């Protein structure tokens, strides 16, 4: 009982990993910004009227507000969603965001995502939910003096830890689904995937006609990684080794398998696991305002308070 009491006190009075959460917030916004900007050359196909996918309009009421870009009128004006999104995420990368701006960012992202939902992949799904949870990553200081500050700390901590749980659920589901089929179990999944034009490269397609020991090994390592991640990620000493496997896994998906957006989103999501002290140093290096402060003759402000 005492433990629960202590935990609840901590939940509302101490900000969990404040530097990690602020660095992660910037990186996840940078990823969202970069991926949406990446598709600007084909914006008319992705969000506008030149789409090739068959788009239906299956939602009514408040749900319709999430899928406005599936309606011809809004598709003709997709810039209303695109540029505010780029502006808000760009500002968040620089460290300027609050609850309202992050909420608005998420609403815009949901619309941009559903506009092209048919060709979306798991990366976009997880970004959808990480941006939702990031709404609650308030900048607050420990030992709150008011109930509002205390509530903000609770929401921050829940938002941050649920982001970890979100990634864990993702891997657990992905891993357990693989047990329903046979290709992953027999070690053939990677071999088959790399034999499909769109998930491979010409030089790989040329020599790959028989499964090999290293492809089977990589297949089972990725299966083991996904199944064990939800448990092992909570053990600090194991975490760097576990995440290193994950980085290799997701960078391979990005550059070998060619699902670049999926790979990069998952790599970016790993920013939430950067230890607090390291995140503090990184934040210091990317904080452009530190160059301005000495010039203005003002004192550097320490901490993460608003």
């Amino acid at each position, binding site marked *: 009982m005492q433990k629960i009491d202590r935990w609840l006190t901590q939940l509302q009075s101490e900000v969990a990993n404040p530097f990690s959460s602020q660095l992660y917030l910037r990186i996840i916004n940078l990823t969202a910004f970069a991926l949406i900007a990446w598709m600007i050359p*084909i914006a008319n196909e*992705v969000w506008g009227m*030149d789409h090739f996918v068959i788009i239906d309009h299956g939602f009514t009421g408040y749900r319709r507000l999430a899928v406005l870009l599936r309606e011809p009128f809004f598709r003709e004006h997709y810039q209303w969603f695109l540029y505010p999104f780029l502006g808000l995420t760009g500002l968040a990368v620089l460290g300027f965001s609050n609850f309202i701006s992050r909420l608005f960012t998420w609403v815009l992202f949901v619309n941009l995502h*559903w506009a092209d939902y048919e060709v979306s992949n798991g990366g976009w799904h997880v970004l959808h939910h990480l941006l939702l949870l990031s709404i609650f990553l308030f900048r607050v200081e420990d030992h709150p003096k008011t109930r509002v500050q205390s509530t903000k700390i609770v929401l921050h901590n829940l938002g941050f830890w649920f982001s970890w749980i979100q990634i864990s659920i*993702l891997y657990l589901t992905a891993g357990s689904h693989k047990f329903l089929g046979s290709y992953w179990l027999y070690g053939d999944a990677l071999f088959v995937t790399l034999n499909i034009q769109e998930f491979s490269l*010409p030089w790989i397609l040329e020599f790959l006609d*028989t499964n090999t020991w290293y492809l089977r090994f990589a297949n089972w390592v990725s299966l083991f990684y*996904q199944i064990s991640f939800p448990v092992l990620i909570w053990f600090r000493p194991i975490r760097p080794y576990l995440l290193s496997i994950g980085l290799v896994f997701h960078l391979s998906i990005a550059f070998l398998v060619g699902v670049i957006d999926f790979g990069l989103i998952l790599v970016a999501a790993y920013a939430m696991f950067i230890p607090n002290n390291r995140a503090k140093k990184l934040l210091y290096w990317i904080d452009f305002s530190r160059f301005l402060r000495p010039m203005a003759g003002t004192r550097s402000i320490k901490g993460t308070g608003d």
Partner: protein
Amino acid sequence: MLPKSLFYASSQFLAPWFYQNLTAFAPEPPFNRHVFVYRVKDKSGWSKWDYPAYPYLQKQWQNRFDPAIKTHDQLELVGDNLYWTAHSYPGEKIYLTEKGRKLPAVVSCKKVMRKVQGQLLEIDSFQVAVYIERLRVNEEGVLSRTDSALFFPKYVWDAED
């Protein structure tokens, strides 16, 4: 994992704001490919079969950061849509008739043709098909590929479709 009724009830509540398709994360490899191909007829006769997604795939092979892959994915989906239209109600009954050219899957094919070929003023008819590739691995770990095609009938080109 959830009972069916609970799954549908929760999905209805969650979609689209909080919807999460967890099966999208690295499922079984897609061992059946449905590739959209087409040909058109003008004064000089029928053209060769064109595989419109291929140039976009080549671009991404050259540069993994090329957004052409997203166009490619849309074009791949056109092939899937054609395949499933011909194998499910009501498309399976319609696609063999002249009304087939008004099916959404065929209309999206015409959009692709317009993008690839420009205005298409000289065209009088067209035909779409799905090239089907099936990949299987035997017990020795050797890959086999079988291919076939699903042909849609030749339709009259109507610019207003």
